[in-house]
């Protein structure tokens, strides 16, 4: 089971956002996607989910086209994508994570699955509350519960820590730690603490994809602020000159 990108390109009008991206992500990997604003991180994620179609190249998941695997993908978009005043309860939001193409098809265990997902993110008590009554961090956890409701094999998150404070950031970190290993996770982020401690691989996207070599530095560096082993992006390897602009932000550790 793997995600395979073969020479994937994407253009917005005349602007080439992604150019011949090739990569293979194996089952159970935790891949962090970092890079400068406008570098194509979110575009790459949307291509893999099937929200955008590549201009060139192909993307397969488990050897099948993306549209056949969409029901097996849990997606956490940026929190700003939805209407914050929409009249809907937390439970009903999570239920949308079990939506199927056929309007007549009903899953019998919807309630149990949704409550289990809410339990996972620690919000089962808020099931009946309207979504607009929650704080930004709680909403973010609801969106993660929605993505988890269908027990997907793939979990894709787009900037999950962009609107949350440090307390929620740590809770999300612990949650992702719990989820990692059970499923393949792709995380678009600017939060390098997440990259540091959870990732098995780090992709830097800036029109091209460059994979940062990383090494386990547990022995020399101990643990990060969350108590996890620390991975370090190696900078002793020379990258292509336009491949990545992340080094200046990453410092010694990523």
């Amino acid at each position, binding site marked *: 089971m793997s995600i395979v990108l073969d020479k994937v390109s994407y253009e917005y009008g005349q602007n080439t956002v992604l150019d011949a991206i090739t990569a293979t992500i194996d089952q159970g990997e935790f891949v962090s996607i970092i890079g400068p604003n406008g570098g194509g991180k979110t575009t790459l994620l949307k291509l893999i989910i099937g929200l955008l179609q590549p201009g060139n190249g192909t993307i397969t998941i488990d050897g099948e086209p993306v549209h056949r695997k969409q029901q097996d993908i849990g*997606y956490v*978009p940026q929190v700003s*994508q939805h209407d914050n005043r*929409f*009249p809907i309860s937390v439970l009903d939001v999570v239920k*949308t994570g079990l939506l199927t*193409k056929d309007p007549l098809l009903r899953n019998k265990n919807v309630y149990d699955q949704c409550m289990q997902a809410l339990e996972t993110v620690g919000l089962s008590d808020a099931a009946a509350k309207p979504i607009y009554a929650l704080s930004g961090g709680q909403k973010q956890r609801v969106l993660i519960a929605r993505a988890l409701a269908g027990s997907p094999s793939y979990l894709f998150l787009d900037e999950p820590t962009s609107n949350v404070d440090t307390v929620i950031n740590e809770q999300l970190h612990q949650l992702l730690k719990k989820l990692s290993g059970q499923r393949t996770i792709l995380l678009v982020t600017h939060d390098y603490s997440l990259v540091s401690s959870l990732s098995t691989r780090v992709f830097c996207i800036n029109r091209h994809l460059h994979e940062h070599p990383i090494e386990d530095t547990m022995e020399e560096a101990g643990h990060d602020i969350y108590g996890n082993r620390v991975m370090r992006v190696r900078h002793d390897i020379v990258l292509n000159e336009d491949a990545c602009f992340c080094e200046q932000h990453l410092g010694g550790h990523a």
Partner: protein
Amino acid sequence: MNEFFSALTSQDLPFLRYALLAGLLSSPAFGIIGTYVVVNRITSIAGAISHAALAGIGAGLYFGFNPLAGATIAALIAGLIISFITLKVNERVDSIIGMIWAVGMSIGLLFIAKSPGYQDPMSYLFGNILLIGKSDLYLLLTLDIITSIAGVILFHHIQAISFDAEFARSRGIHTDLFQIVMIMMISVTVVLMVTVVGIVMVIALLTIPAATAGLFSNRLKTIMLLATVLTALFHFAGLALSYTADSPTGATTIIIAAAVYTLSLSAVSLYRKRKFTEHAPAVSAQAAHPPESDAKTD
């Protein structure tokens, strides 16, 4: 009021029964589709469709076919054009919607002006219950059944797409197709009440009941049900009062609906303010001594 009930059963005034039936029959469609319009903030699209329906009414009068059928066709065409523009054309959508709004009315008025005999556009613009015939009721019933069944079957998809269309798309749902279906349903629903409240005011009856219901519930399904009941009540009250006071039915119905909305909004605002004031000391104390649980700190 007794006078109104007597008139309802009178053999000499069938139009009154037809008007009441038309209002009651269209209530479920108005409750469901009106809620969709309000929560998706697409009132201008519904307005453009309702005004474009005049083109079909005018064509019907000019060429000699049922104006209501003409209104249905014109509203569906307007809905299709708006769907296409919204989904595919990278232009200022609001300007084009405004254009459809005005051009539809202009075509309708031109047809009416050139139709043989005297045609009063006021009846279509502001409604005239005398225009409702038995055949119109059958058409209304058919359209209402289609809209209501579609609304019930598609409820979960409507809710998911309205809340977060991108996520729904990530589940493989054809959100563009659903949005086209919903705009077509708006077109049909608008036509349901054009003869009763008129093209100009149908938009108010589509949105005020749902907006009022939204003050009392934060569940989409409940808002739809409550909006259905309110539409029926507004229509009944409007018809009764306009008959008793000898006033235009459409205008009377809209004024009643707007009055109920204003009173409801005031009452709910006062209730929330009082609730907030009662909880303020507790919140202040909490702020001074923040609790440890995450639900309260985030």
